[in-house]
C-alpha cells in the first residue's frame, strides 16, 4: 500500500487518466463491531494536528455524540443513533413510540468516503485544489483552495467543511502522508477492536463480504455499502441494515454526482463558450457588413450644432459603476466558471481574493443596477412604438434606420438589453447568495443555485456583448454620450427622435 502518491486527476483541469490499473486502497469499517470508543477521533486530531479550541461546550446531546457533523478541525466523527427494534432486533419505524421492545445503538464512523467519482472534485473550480491519487485517495490541497465551497455542494456525504479563519475547506485525507510512507491511516492504527481495516479495495471487499455473511445470521439485511452512484467508495461499510443506510446518521441511500453538477460542469460550459464565440462572430460580421452608423444630418443646421445633455454626471457615474463591476464580475466569474480561463483569477489577485470579492462586487453591481432601474424605469417601459421597432429590427440592424419609428430616450433594443440585465442581475443575486454562504442553505438549493447562477451569467454576458457592440462600435457618438454626457442635436434626432424633440422643445 506504500509508494509515492501520483495524481490521477485533479480538480478543474478536466484531465482524466484512468485509475483502474493501479491498486485501489480502501478502508473497511465494520459497523457491526464498532464500539463507538472514539479512539479514531482522537487519533485523527492528533496525527493531523488539528487545532481545537481550549474551552468548549457540548453542541448536541445525541446519544454519546456531542457534535452534529464533522468540522474543518474535526474530520472523523462517530455518529450515534438509537433506533427502536423489535424482539428479533430488527429495526422498527423511527417514530415507534417508547414502547418499542428494544433499542439498538448504531455507531458509524463518518468521514470522507474517497469516492471513485468524487462529487467534490467534480464541483471544484480551482485547479489542483482537489486531487485524486492513483491509489484512489481524494485529497484537498488547501494551498490551491479558493474557499468557494463548491466541493461542499458537490459532495453527497456532507463531508468537506469550510474554515472561516483560513477561508479554506478541509476534510479527511485518509492520512495520505502516512499511506505514502507505507502506513495505514491513524484512525485504523488506533482502532482497538479491529473494526477498521485498511488495504486494497479488493481485499477489503472480500473481507466485508465474509463479515456480512456472518452478520446475516442475526440481521438478514446485512450487507456492504459501496455505492455505485459515485463509482464505489474508498471507504466501505459493513452494515447490519444495509437496506436502510439512513438509519446510520443519514448515510446517503443512493449518492451520486448530481445532474445539476454534471450539467454545470459539462454542457453548460461548452454551450456558454460556444454562445459567447457565436456572439462575437455575429458582432464582427454585423460590423463589417453594415458598418458603423454615422449620424445623418437631419437637423440641417450649420456647425456648431447644439449640444444636448443626454446623461447627467450621476447617471454616467452610475453607468460606469455598473459597467466596471459587471466587467469584474464577468471576468472573475469566468475565471471561476471554466478552468480554461483560470488565469483570469491570477490576474485578479488569486482565487481566494476573487472568491472574497466577487459576491461583494456583485452586491455593488446590483445596488447600482437598482438605482439605475429606479432612475430610468419610466424611460424603459415598453411602449406600442417599441413593438413596431422590434418588428422592424432587421431594418435597424441593416442600417435602414429610417424604417424604424423614432425612439424615445432609449430604443427598444436598449430597453430589452436593460431588462435582460436587470432580470439577470436579480437572478444572479438570488442564486449567488446560497453560493456565497453555502453553510446556510440546503445542498439541493445550492445545486440549483450553481446551475442558475452560471446560466444567468452566460445570458448577461451575451447581452453585454450586444450592448457594447451596438453602443460603442456601431452607434458612433454613443460612447461620447456616456463619457462627456452630451450628444449633438443631429445624433439625438437620428437615434432618439422623440427624445430629441422633447429635449429641444423644453429649453434647458
Amino acid at each position: 500500500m506504500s509508494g509515492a502518491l501520483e495524481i490521477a486527476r485533479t480538480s478543474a483541469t478536466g484531465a482524466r487518466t484512468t485509475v483502474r490499473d493501479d491498486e485501489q486502497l480502501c478502508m473497511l469499517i465494520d459497523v457491526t463491531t464498532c464500539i463507538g470508543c472514539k479512539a479514531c477521533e482522537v487519533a485523527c486530531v492528533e496525527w493531523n494536528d488539528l487545532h481545537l479550541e481550549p474551552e468548549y461546550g457540548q453542541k448536541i446531546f445525541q446519544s454519546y455524540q456531542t457534535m452534529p457533523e464533522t468540522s474543518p478541525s474535526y474530520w472523523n466523527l462517530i455518529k450515534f443513533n438509537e433506533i427502536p427494534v423489535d424482539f428479533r432486533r430488527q429495526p422498527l419505524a423511527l417514530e415507534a413510540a417508547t414502547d418499542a421492545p428494544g433499542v439498538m445503538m448504531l455507531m458509524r464512523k463518518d468521514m470522507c468516503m474517497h469516492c471513485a467519482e468524487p462529487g467534490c472534485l467534480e464541483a471544484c473550480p480551482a485547479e489542483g485544489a482537489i486531487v485524486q491519487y492513483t491509489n484512489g485517495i481524494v485529497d484537498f490541497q488547501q494551498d490551491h483552495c479558493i474557499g468557494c465551497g463548491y466541493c461542499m455542494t458537490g459532495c453527497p456525504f456532507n463531508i468537506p467543511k469550510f474554515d472561516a479563519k483560513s477561508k479554506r475547506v478541509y476534510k479527511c485525507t485518509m492520512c495520505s502522508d502516512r499511506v505514502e510512507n507505507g502506513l495505514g491511516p491513524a484512525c485504523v492504527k488506533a482502532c482497538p477492536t479491529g473494526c477498521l481495516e485498511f488495504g486494497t479495495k479488493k481485499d477489503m471487499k472480500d473481507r466485508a463480504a465474509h463479515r456480512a455473511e456472518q452478520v446475516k445470521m442475526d440481521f438478514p439485511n446485512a450487507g456492504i455499502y459501496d455505492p455505485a452512484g459515485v463509482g464505489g467508495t474508498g471507504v466501505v461499510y459493513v452494515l447490519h441494515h444495509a437496506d436502510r443506510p439512513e438509519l446510520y446518521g443519514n448515510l446517503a441511500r443512493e449518492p451520486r454526482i448530481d445532474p445539476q453538477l454534471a450539467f454545470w460542469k459539462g454542457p453548460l460550459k461548452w454551450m456558454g463558450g460556444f454562445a459567447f464565440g457565436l456572439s462575437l462572430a455575429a458582432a464582427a460580421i454585423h460590423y463589417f457588413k453594415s458598418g458603423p452608423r454615422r449620424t445623418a444630418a437631419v437637423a440641417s443646421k450649420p456647425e456648431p450644432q447644439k449640444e444636448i445633455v443626454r446623461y447627467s454626471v450621476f447617471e454616467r457615474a452610475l453607468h460606469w459603476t455598473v459597467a466596471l463591476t459587471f466587467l469584474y464580475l464577468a471576468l472573475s466569474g469566468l475565471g471561476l466558471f471554466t478552468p480554461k480561463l483560470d488565469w483570469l483569477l491570477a490576474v485578479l489577485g488569486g482565487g481566494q481574493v476573487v472568491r472574497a470579492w466577487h459576491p461583494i462586487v456583485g452586491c455593488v453591481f446590483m445596488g447600482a443596477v437598482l438605482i439605475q432601474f429606479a432612475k430610468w424605469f419610466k424611460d424603459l417601459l415598453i411602449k406600442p412604438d417599441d413593438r413596431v421597432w422590434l418588428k422592424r429590427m432587421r431594418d435597424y440592424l441593416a442600417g435602414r434606420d429610417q424604417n424604424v419609428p423614432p425612439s424615445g430616450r432609449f430604443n427598444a433594443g436598449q430597453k430589452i438589453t436593460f431588462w435582460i440585465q436587470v432580470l439577470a442581475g436579480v437572478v444572479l443575486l438570488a442564486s449567488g447568495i446560497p453560493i456565497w454562504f453555502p453553510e446556510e442553505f440546503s445542498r439541493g438549493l445550492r445545486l440549483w443555485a450553481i446551475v442558475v447562477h452560471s446560466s444567468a451569467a452566460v445570458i448577461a454576458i451575451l447581452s453585454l456583448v450586444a450592448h457594447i457592440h451596438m453602443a460603442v462600435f456601431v452607434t458612433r457618438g454613443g460612447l461620447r454620450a456616456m463619457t462627456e454626457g452630451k450628444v449633438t442635436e443631429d445624433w439625438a434626432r437620428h437615434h432618439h427622435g422623440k427624445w430629441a424633440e422633447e429635449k429641444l422643445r423644453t429649453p434647458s
Partner: protein
Amino acid sequence: MTNGWTDIRNTDVVLAMGGNPAENHPCGFKWVIEAKKKRGAKLVSVDPRYNRTSAVSDHFVQIRAGTDIAFLDGLVHYTLENKKYHEDYVKLHTNALFLLEPGFEINDDGLFGGWDAEKRAYDRSKWKYALDENGFARRAESLDDPTCVFQQMKKHFSRYTPEKVSEVCGCTKEDFLKAAEIVCSTGTADRAGTIMYALGWTQHSTGVQIIRAAAILQLILGNVGRAGGGVNALRGHANIQGGTDHGMAYHALPGYLKMPVPSDASMEKYLARTTPKALSATSMNYWSNTPKFMVSLMKSHFGRAATAENDWGFHWLPKIDGNYSWVYLFDHMYQGQIQGLLDFGMNPVGNGPNTEKVIAALGKLDWCVIAECFPTETAEFWTVSKENPKTEIFLLPAGLFAEKDGSFTNSSRWAQWKFKAAPPPGEAKVDEEILARIFMRVRELYRKEGGAFPDPILNLDWTFKNPYVPTLEEIAREINGRDLATGKQLSSFGELKADGTTSSGDWLYCGSYTEAGNLMARRDPRDPSGLGQYEGWAWNWPLNRRVMYNRASADAQGRPWDPTRSGIQWNGSRWVGDTPDMKPDAPPGTLDAFIMLPEGVAKLWAPDLVDGPFPEHYEPVEYPVENPMHPKTTRNPVAPIFQGPMDKLGAKEEYDIVATTYRLTEHFHFWTKHIAPTALLQPEFFVEVPEGLAVQRGIRNEDRVRVSTPRGSVTGRALVTRRIHGMKVAGKEIWQVGIPIHWGFAGRTVKGDGATGGRGPMANLLTACAVDPNSFTPEYKTFLVKLEKV
C-alpha cells in the same frame, strides 16, 4: 483475571455483567470481537442500561441496579435444574462432595444460621465442614448425599426460579431464560464460557457475594482454569492490579500476606494465625509456605537488621487495630482523628463517595501533601469548601506514567515493563524521588531527634545507588528478591526460605527479575500455544502462569477436557503446556487442582465471607422496594451503615428513582478532562434519563435537570434515551437514571453552573458511604435520587 485478556479469544460465550468492557476496556475488548468473528462466540450483556457493550452483544438484558446476585443465582438454579452442569468437573475440582455440618442454612427471614442480632454479625463457627479424625473434610460418595455441598447448594438456589429472577431484577422471564440458555450452554467438556466483570459488581453492599455467585456459576459449568473460561475482573486503572499485589490495600502486606494485628504478639503467633491448615489429604495448601514468604519480606524491608533474634523485625511493622479502608479512613478524618495526608496520584474529592463529606474531612487535616500531574479537585478542594479549612496544602508537581520507567501489571496479571517517553516537565519529579526525598529528611530528623519509635525508619534497608533517587530497576530487583548468601537474584518463590537467607519484596513477583534479567521487559510476540498465551511477552505472576487454576483444565487422568484448548496435560512424567498450577511432577490424583485453598478444590460453599456461605440477594442500602425474597431482611444484614451527621440515607418514598454511576469510554476517571482532545469528546456532564420517565416528568432532551440525594445534588443536561427503560418490580414501577462520573470543577470540561456551590457536576456528591462488609468497597453503583427539571 483468572485467565487473561488474550485468552478471551478462546471462549464460546462471554457474559459481560457488572462491567462494560467495550466501553471501559476497549483495547481488551478486541478479544471478544475476535472470539465473535473467529469462533462465533456469543456475547450476553446484562446491565442496568444498554451500553456500548450491549450494542455489539447478541443478547441484552436490562436488570435493576443492585440485583446481580438474584440474576446469577437464577443462572445457577437454571444450570442445576436443567442438569447443564459439568458433572465430572464438579466432582473432581470443587467441594461439591464435601459434607457439611447443619446450622448454616438460610431461614425464611433471609438470615443464615449463626446470626447474632445484637452484634449484627454471623457466628461463622456455625458454618463448617463435617471433619474426620485428621481434621480433614469428609466427602460424600455421590452428589445425591443430602448433607453434601451439592445438595445444600441445590436447595439454597432453588428459590431463584426464573419467575423470581424476573420479579427481583425487573427483566422479563423470557429475556432471563434466553440469557440462561446461552450462558449455561458451556457446561460441557467441549465448550468454555467466560465472565467479564468490573466495578459494576464490586461496588455494592453485596459486592463480594456477587463475585462468589459468578464463581459458583463458572465452577459448576466447569469453566474455571480452562482456556476461554474463568472469572475475569477487569481492572480499571493501568496498574491497579500491581498496586493490589504490592499491598496497596490497608488490610494486606505485599503478596496478599495478612496484615499483623495487635494480638499477634510475635512472629510465631502471627504465622500461626495466618498460615492455613489443609482440609484434605490431597490438598497442596500452598499457603502453608506463608513463613517463607513473610520472613523473606522482612529481610527485604529491613535487610541485616532483621534477625531471628528480633523476630525478623516483626515488631517494626504496624499492627492494625481497626478498619482503615477508604470510607472509614475519611470518616476518621471527618471526625478530626487524622492530622496529615500524603496523597499520591489519588483524587479523593473525585473518587470517594459522598463528596461533601470528603471535602469537609480534608478541611479538618492540619496538612495535606498532594503529588499530582494536574491540579485536581483534591488539590483545589479549599476553593469550594463551605467552612474555611485549616488545612495547609502542598501541591508537588509529579511526573505522570509516561515520564517514568517501571512496570504496569494489567488485568491479565502481566507485569509489563515500560520505558519513560520524556522527562517530567519543569520542576516536576517522579514519585519515587519525591518519596525518597521525604524519607531521607524524615530519617535525618529521627536520627537527630530520636522520636517516639524511630526503629522502623532507622532500620529500613535503603541501599540504593542514589538514595535520593532510587531507580525503579533497583526496586524491581528488590521486589523479586535474592539469595542473601550468593547475592544472586532468585528465579522462583519455590526458592524462598524462612531462615532469613532469602529476601523478596513480594513473593508473587519472585521470578520477574532473575539472573536472566528483567523478564517483565520481554517482548516476544510469538504464541506457540496458539491460545494467546504469549509466554515470552512480559512476565506474569505467578511464575509466568497465564491461566490460573489450569490444573482444572484437565480431567482426573490429566487429559484436557477439550484437546483443542489444552491448558496443561500430564505426559506420563510431567505436566506440560502452560506453567502448571500444580507441582510439575505430581501425577494426577495425588494433589488437587486448587493449590492455594486448604480444601484443595474450589469452594461452591464457602465459610470465609462474613455475610453468608452462599450468595443471597439483598437490596442495596438505599432500596426502592422491600426485598422480594424476604421482606424482613431487606438489606445485607452485615453491611455497616454509617450514621454521622453527613451520612444521610434517602427513603424510597421521597427519593423515588434508582441511580447508578459509571464511566464513559471517552474519559479515564477524572484525568482526561484535563487534556484538550479527550475533554472535547465528552465536554459536559449529563444525566441519562429514560424516555418514558422523561415523558412523565416533561423533560426534553438537553433540558437542565437536578438530581439530588440527602447528601448532595448535581445539575446538568438530560440525555433522554431509549437505552434505559422502565420496569416493574414487585408490582411497582421503577425507573433508573444513569450518572457518568467524569466531570468536576477542575480541568478543561464544562464546570457546571454554580448551582452546587462551585462544586461542578460530580457524581459522587450523590453517592453514600455504604460499603460491602467483606471488602469495604463503597456502594457507588446503586442509590436513590430525586429528579427534577430545573
